[in-house]
């Protein structure tokens, strides 16, 4: 399965991973995916609101191996292979060196050395 993602130059791995999580839920849920949205492995804390469904993405909840072909800004596409169960945001951040995840990863401190 391959997702093609077009993004702005500035994109965080967490945001892209949240969108991939929703695509995973759509894929398995079919046309009526919103009914079982909250019970999908990539979706956590789902809550029906008056104007939509609030949720947080479970970064380790991808249900099937998925390739994500990313076109970022005007750059050529890079393909990231996501394996079911692995942390999506970390893998996406590896493929997009300047993308940020919510927590800093080891060696990502770019502040001037004293």
């Amino acid at each position, binding site marked *: 399965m*391959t997702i093609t*993602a*077009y993004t*702005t130059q*500035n*994109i965080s791995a967490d945001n892209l991973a949240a969108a991939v999580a929703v*695509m995973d839920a759509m894929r398995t849920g079919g046309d009526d995916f919103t009914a079982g949205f909250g019970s999908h492995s990539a979706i956590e804390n789902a809550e029906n609101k008056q104007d*939509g*469904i609030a949720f947080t993405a479970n970064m380790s909840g991808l249900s099937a191996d998925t390739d994500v072909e990313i*076109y970022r800004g005007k750059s050529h596409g890079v393909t990231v292979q996501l394996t079911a169960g692995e942390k999506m945001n970390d893998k996406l951040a590896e493929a997009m060196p300047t993308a940020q995840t919510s927590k800093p990863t080891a060696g990502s401190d770019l502040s001037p050395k004293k």
Partner: protein
Amino acid sequence: MLKDLLTKLVYKLCIWRKAEDDDSSFVADEEVKSPKGVNGLLDVETALLFEDSRVILMVDYDFSDVPSWIEGDTETKSISIVQMGGAVANVKMTLPEQEKERWQNLKRVALVSGTGSQKLMHYVSFTLHKAA
């Protein structure tokens, strides 16, 4: 006497109708409001994801008004999010030419929005139009 009575009745009815007209014009003025929500360019992180017939639009933004539907323009390839209060947010990306086969037949889009780890998902209609 009967004539006097009828004259008074007509007079009272006229005053009542005039007051009612005044009321309705006042309400009409109050209903004219500027659109709620975000108008113009939405200069935030944005992603458009395609897989088979499924499409997701992710915007790093907390909407103050409810997104109602998404519009695409076949000429300019622009994408807009129309909100319930009438405001129209223009997304900082265009419809990719490579995916034309997909977005030409697209009926609905899952809109994922929110600036933090908690997101909001709206499954909204997608309409295509041609710029006038």
